């Protein structure tokens, strides 16, 4: 190549290494092309080797050992808790559950995604035994643990299986995302977990009959919250031809000053909504059996002696 610098003497092209200028250009182009292709192939291999990264969300990821826990709970429920359901096919149910969210956009979840799962699990609660709850999870579940003939959603098969778990997939992968999952408020509300609970809550309400009950928290300002799952989904989906009465047990913290939440505007709102559905509303402050449960934690309190 040093020759080139001193070759300006003649106009004519001086051939290098015995090949023409045209051939040199072709070789250069070919050389460059080879380098580009080589880089592209290497990058391609590296990318293929590395698992496609999941999207990053603001909420906690899928619960560790999600599938084992899910399946184990299905079997515990159908063999031990409610043995009348012992012929349930938990393998099928597990597969239907994961198919609802794997390889899908976790912010684009729909009720349809859970349809196959819903069709496999048709458990109805006896009339007068449905117990809803809102901002009173611990108390409601402690109650049904003792009063075993009443059911919260989490005492039915699907609720029992999914309670407390988190899950999501990714449209670019067939794996569960254990790193993060969409946060309801900060990412999207149509996420796999929220849509699941909306779907099962809707059916739980649709299947209810007779007198239904709800444990509400009288120690917060929004005792009946229209935006809660109870307000938005459950009350909304009660069937007036099946449900004739809703009884609310409004519980106050033991330490707080007694008040009549039943006459509050929040509960009056609930009463009006039920009126338009022709459902009778009965309200009770501090229903005794549930009050006794609160007393277990505070036995020395004056209202517990």
């Amino acid at each position: 190549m040093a020759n080139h610098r001193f070759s300006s003497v003649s106009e004519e092209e001086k051939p290098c290494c015995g090949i023409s200028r045209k051939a040199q250009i072709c070789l250069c182009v070919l050389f460059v092309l080879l380098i580009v292709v080589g880089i592209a192939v290497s990058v391609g291999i590296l990318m293929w080797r590395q698992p496609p990264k999941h999207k990053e969300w603001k909420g906690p990821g899928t619960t560790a050992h999600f599938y084992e826990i899910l399946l184990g709970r299905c079997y515990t429920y159908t063999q031990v808790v409610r043995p009348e359901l012992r012929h349930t096919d938990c393998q099928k149910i597990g597969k239907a559950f994961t198919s609802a969210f794997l390889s899908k956009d976790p912010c684009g979840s729909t009720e349809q995604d859970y349809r196959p799962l819903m069709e496999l699990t048709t458990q109805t609660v006896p009339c007068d035994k449905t117990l809803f709850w809102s901002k009173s999870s611990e108390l409601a579940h402690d109650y049904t643990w003792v009063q075993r003939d009443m059911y919260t959603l989490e005492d039915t098969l699907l609720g029992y299986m999914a309670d407390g778990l988190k899950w999501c997939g990714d449209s670019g992968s067939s794996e569960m995302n254990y790193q993060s999952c969409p946060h309801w408020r900060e990412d999207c509300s149509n996420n796999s977990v929220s849509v699941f609970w909306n779907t099962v809550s809707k059916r739980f309400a649709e299947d209810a009959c007779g007198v239904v009950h709800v444990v509400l928290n009288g120690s917060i300002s929004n005792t009946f919250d229209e935006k809660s799952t109870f307000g938005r989904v459950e009350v909304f989906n009660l069937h007036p031809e099946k449900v004739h009465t809703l009884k609310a047990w409004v519980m106050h913290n033991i330490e707080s000053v007694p008040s009549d939440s039943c006459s509050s505007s929040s509960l009056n709102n609930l009463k009006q909504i039920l009126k338009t559905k022709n459902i009778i509303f009965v309200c009770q402050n501090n229903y005794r059996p549930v009050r006794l449960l609160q007393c277990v934690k505070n036995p020395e309190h004056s209202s517990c002696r």
Partner: protein
Amino acid sequence: MAALGLASSLPLLLLVIAGAGGAGGARWRGEGTTRHLQSIILGRCAEHVALLHPEQGEKNCTAIWEAFKVVLDKDPCSVFPSDYDLFINLSRHSIPTDKSLFWENNHLLVTSYAENARRFVPVCSVLYGRMGDFLSWCRQENASGLDYQSCPTSEDCENNPVDSFWKRASMQYSRDSSGVIYVMLNGSEPTGAYPVKGFFADFEIPYFQKDKITRIEIWVMHEIGRPKVESCGEGSVKILEERLKEMGFQYSCINDHLPVKLLKCVDHSTHPDCALKSAAASIQREVPPLWSEYGGSLITPFLVALASAIQM
């Protein structure tokens, strides 16, 4: 005549045969192996480790299951507590001090009161106890493979898989307990609140670690509305108290420990034994559905009568 006699005694004969073999011709007196045992045990292990107690560190649930399942290959009357040694060693973890709750004859009450290890940690909230809780398992008597019809109880043979499991679990639970020890007994149990031969007597008390225990508190609970067979200082409870005294433990005994009694009252809220002084006050403040239900039916005819009297 003879044919008739045979025909009439045949059902009786069948009953006798059925009775001899147990319910429906089963070999043993106890419930058969729980179906899908492996999935249930692995699921419970995963749930405990990943969800409920991540602070206890990683446990290898697969290895724990492998250690458990060796008993499923053994003769159902030749399974000893020591057969569970590896299983226990892989799954044991520390128990918070002052949180141990021992019991006899009130499984469900203990589970409710313990509130899934938030209030107390009974043996069924410890990893190894959680895995076996409410389950049953055994190999067939003369073949490999699990027996789903029935499994032996202590009346069939002493060294059966389930009893040996709970003996071994009880021993470990006892050894790992510290601080104040709580014991819940059933004072309405006709055979006595403290079974002199039982898991607590034979596999827990002997394994108490004297140097780690501060004192022992006994609660003798009675069923609401049922006779009080025994109370503190009486019958078998007295035997227990004396045994603990002899062993050098500081102990106390309480009849119907209030928080537990309140829990029992949840499904007996109208029973006089569950009446709270504040109950009278709260009834006056309640929205009066009672009045509209019962009072209304009395008041209306009265008002009608009064009205007609006034008119006349």
